[in-house]
């Protein structure tokens, strides 16, 4: 009975944390930092949230491919196309794993960039490991994206607009949580936290993309000329 109550309380506390990060991120982060945090929970959240997103995206892609196969089967017959159907599960597994890996990389890199900016440009007080833990919780608003992909799976045409709106809300919510995380962790003002959590990483990612793009395009054009 005692154990049952204990596990119930820990579930309730976990639910409170999840909701608190969305509704009162400043207070919830403060409380969490006071009590001390483990990296396990944010890591688990990232894996779950982005794993599910990847899986749902994979399922949607597979169902789209099935539509095309249905269409093609009218001309080619069903037998030759059945060979491809067995391999569709690989798509879902691939999107799930790649989503998780991408999310983990972005988590580590974004926290690193924000840490460098907040610590060395704005002379903040916090540590990278603490920011990394707080940044993990920024994955919570992506539950809206999950809801959006589920709706998209139900009806592509009716729910596409709602999907975009949910994605937009999730994006802004994530930015706010990242900002609060940096502000709380390094005790800097919100403007500096916004620059560290959003502007600097954005500039870094855009610059990196531009460099990679220019390398690829030069390789491609070079290859073509050769």
């Amino acid at each position: 009975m005692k154990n049952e109550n204990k596990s119930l309380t820990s579930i309730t506390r976990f639910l409170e944390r999840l909701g608190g990060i969305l509704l009162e991120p400043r207070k919830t982060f403060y409380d969490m930092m006071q009590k001390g945090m483990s990296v396990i929970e944010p890591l688990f959240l990232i894996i779950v949230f982005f794993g599910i997103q990847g899986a749902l995206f994979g399922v949607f892609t597979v169902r789209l491919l099935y539509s095309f196969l249905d269409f093609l089967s009218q001309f080619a017959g069903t037998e030759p196309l059945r060979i491809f159907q067995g391999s569709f599960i690989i798509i879902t597994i691939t999107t799930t794993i790649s989503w998780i890996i991408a999310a983990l990389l972005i988590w580590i890199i974004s926290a690193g960039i924000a840490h460098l900016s907040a610590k060395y440009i704005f002379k903040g007080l916090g540590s990278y490991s603490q920011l990394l833990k707080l940044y993990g919780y920024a994955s919570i608003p992506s539950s809206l994206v999950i809801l959006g992909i589920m709706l998209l799976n139900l009806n592509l045409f009716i729910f596409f607009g709602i999907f975009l709106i949910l994605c937009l809300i999730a994006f802004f919510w994530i930015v706010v949580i990242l900002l609060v995380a940096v502000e709380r962790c390094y005790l800097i003002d919100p403007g500096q936290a916004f620059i560290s959590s959003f502007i600097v990483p954005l500039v870094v990612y855009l610059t990196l993309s531009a460099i990679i793009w220019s390398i690829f395009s030069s390789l491609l054009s070079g290859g073509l000329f050769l």
Partner: protein
Amino acid sequence: MKGNTITGGIIITILLTSIIFTFTSSIFLESPIKFGEDVSGVIRTYTLVSEDVPGAKHINLNFTVKAGRIYINFTDDSNLIYKFVFKQDKEAKRPNIENITFNNGLLVNVMAESGDIKITLGNNYIYNGTLRVGLGGITARFSNYSNIEFFDLSAIYAGGVLVDIEDGASFDNFNLRVNSGGITIQIKANSLKKSSNISARVELGGVIINSIPVGMNLGSRLRAIADIGGVSINPGNFSIIKQTANEVEIMTNNYLMAPTKLDIEIFTGLGGTLINKNFFLS
């Protein structure tokens, strides 16, 4: 604090629903895009009319579908006992239907492996029913042509139940059960033919009641309990009898005096309940 727990509960509900959805969507969802006419399914229709079973007054439906969707609606056709339209895959087994007459009644047993089933019922019979889907959904529209003693609608493993109650619907008891998934109750009625009860239970997921009926002669009372999670309510003009983090009880001001009463009981195991609120605006 309570708001945080409810929000956390909603997030967990979304996550768990999405996990179930990931594994099951390919079973019960159609292709997102259709090219040309859908020729993949087979349609089978079964109809029974009053001439086939003379003297029958009570119809008991015992309907089980392992995976698929059931749509129920009522028409003004007084001659119709039932019309079942099955849309199934070509490879799917034919449904097993048996009609057993007793005294002044008819027992209809239906068992199907999979498919989309549209059930149309007449307005001249009293219906009782136990309709179950293992995995999938049930949508039921109860209009003023419906005449029901009890209906038991359930998604045994996972899925959803959507009930739409319109003006003048007649029923004693609705029993809605979902293991994992959701129940949506849309009550558009301002009057019912007799006092009625609705009981909804979801072990894992959520219950949404878009609005609570208010009518001159109709009084409503609602009690909602969430074991782990919360109940979110827009109390509007209703009298609140009890409101805690996990339990809410409300009634309309005319409930005690109203000649017709609607009692709603909701239980959620892990998840949340939204009452008198739109999901997207909650």
